[in-house]
């Protein structure tokens, strides 16, 4: 191996140096971090909705986060936006960071949501923090769709206070051309939206926009139920796209943590069509096989 080429090969694996440019509280234990890369990284600028990056905090390791906003959906070039819930060691460390703190970003990785089809009536179904990865898909379609293409957003959260991306929600709520369905499991006094899990509202949301395709992101139990409900509402499995999550260490199909039956979530996903998942009994976890 040519030594210079060899070194370049190793250097190519390094995270891109970034700094935290802004931090925004979304809800209890959830924040949106915007990282700035200098110089911008073309591949990251060109990332698709549903793709993810490995965020690196030196001393704490790396973790996978789906991109929550994208240049193609209106974000600034050279930025990476991640909406993060504080659940583990790395996210605890990230929440302790202030603006200006160095970090690293590798990616983008994986296969995102289909970028064509902006002209088709679409329903987006999100649970909890799962709204973040869908945000750029929703905003992307809103930018690219032929006028009048109906779009529904069905968002379920535990409580009204735990809803994230309130600015985006307010924006979509205000637009006549977006049908926003918000539901919470534990309604607080004064909550005027829907209650219960998202599955109970799928049929109505599908009917409202005559959805022909769907994109889903959220906790595995919700994905399983909502995907089945979308199927029951008449959407063909190959028109339902589901973002899976798994613990992962490399993002490039090497570390072995994330495979689901014969597919790697990092490389072949994280977005899969429901048709693919129906053939993969472990998609939502052992003993939770997808239901046709």
């Amino acid at each position, binding site marked *: 191996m040519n030594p210079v080429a*060899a070194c370049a090969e190793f250097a190519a694996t390094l995270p891109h140096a970034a700094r935290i440019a802004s931090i925004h509280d979304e809800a209890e234990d959830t924040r949106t971090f915007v990282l700035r890369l200098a110089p911008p990284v073309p591949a990251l600028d060109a990332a698709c909705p549903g793709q993810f990056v490995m965020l690196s905090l030196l001393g704490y390791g790396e973790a996978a986060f789906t991109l929550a906003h994208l240049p193609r959906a209106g974000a600034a070039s050279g930025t990476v936006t991640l909406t993060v819930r504080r659940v583990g060691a790395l996210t605890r460390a990230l929440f302790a960071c202030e603006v200006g703190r160095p970090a690293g970003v590798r990616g983008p990785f994986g296969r995102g949501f289909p970028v064509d089809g902006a002209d088709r009536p679409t329903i987006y179904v999100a649970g909890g923090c799962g709204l973040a990865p869908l945000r750029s898909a929703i905003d992307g379609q809103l930018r690219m769709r032929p006028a009048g293409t109906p779009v529904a957003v069905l968002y379920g959260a535990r409580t009204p206070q735990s809803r994230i991306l309130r600015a985006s929600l307010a924006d979509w709520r205000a637009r006549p051309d977006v049908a926003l369905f918000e539901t919470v499991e534990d309604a607080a006094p004064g909550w005027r939206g829907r209650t219960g899990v998202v599955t109970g509202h799928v049929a109505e949301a599908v009917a409202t926009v005559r959805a022909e395709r769907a994109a889903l992101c959220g906790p595995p139990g919700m994905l399983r139920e909502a995907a089945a409900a979308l199927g029951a509402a008449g959407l063909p499995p190959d028109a339902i796209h589901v973002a899976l999550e798994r613990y992962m*260490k490399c993002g490039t199909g090497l570390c072995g943590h994330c495979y689901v039956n014969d597919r790697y979530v990092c490389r072949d996903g994280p977005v899969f069509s429901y048709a693919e998942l129906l053939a993969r009994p472990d998609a939502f976890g052992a003993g939770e096989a997808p239901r046709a």
Partner: protein
Amino acid sequence: MLESRAPVDRIRRVLALDRRVIEPRPVDGAPAWVATGGEGAFAWSTPAPLAGVKGWLVPLREAVLAWDDRGTMRPVVPHPERIALVGLRACDLAAIAHLDAHFGADPWYRARRAAAFLVGLDCPQACAGGFCLEVDAGPFARAPFDLNLTALPDGRVVVAWGTAAGVAALHGAGVATAPVDHATALLLAELAARAAASFPVRSYVTRGLARMNAAPAGRAIADEEWQALGPRCLACTGCTSLCPTCTCFTVVDQPVGAGGTRARVWDSCLLEGFQREASGHHPAPHPGDRVRRFWYHKLSRDFAGPTGRLGCVGCGRCDVACPGTIGALGVLAALGGER
């Protein structure tokens, strides 16, 4: 073909001129891979060591990145020692084929692999607990070797070369090889047939493999069967540590002073922590789920390598290492209705 075994020792000594020659030798009563410097006669009949050669190609701990006190990152470029692994059995070579396919694009692996010269040694008969024959990984070797040796009963040695480096090594040692004549080819075929015939008949292996690969994929075996095996897994990580095709790793940051290093460390999918997500959700929450996931990866055609071989090379090491008696043959016996 070599007229005697002596030229093999010459090859080993020549390899030792610019490589560390590592060969199986008995250590404290059991074979182990030992740096011999090519000294002494080659130990033709030393069985395959329990600990394989994976660690030379994929170290237990591989530093990949270092940072300094200003947070500047640099890749940790390995400078692997040039080695020659002499006496690799067919199972271990088949496993290296898997590693090659899996890590082919990984610069750390490529650097270590490029520094390793592989000499295979065909097995004249089944070893205790080995079932390479049933998984098409032996007992005679296929790629990827630089050189491969088949000892003939009359003292001659058939040497095959798989790479230009292998040819160069023969030339470098000044070893003259005669072409394999018709009679010797017949003898080789007979030896291969005799080696194959030496394997005990284990019909449960065939039945177990068939059940693993029956449609619908991954669902032909009732969950209860896996859950019954679950409590026998103590999560010791012995199987994954010894398995020559296990490649899973975790990544660990180790701060040292104001800087630190990031390293890959062998991981094990039998550990509960392997797939536990930060939220607490676990896609394989029960030990039986993890046992199933592991053996699916080893025994299902879904993970067959580019050569079409299974992820299990039939070396039998997991059956030795597993305190719960659910190594490969143990599991196949359960699936094949033998226990």
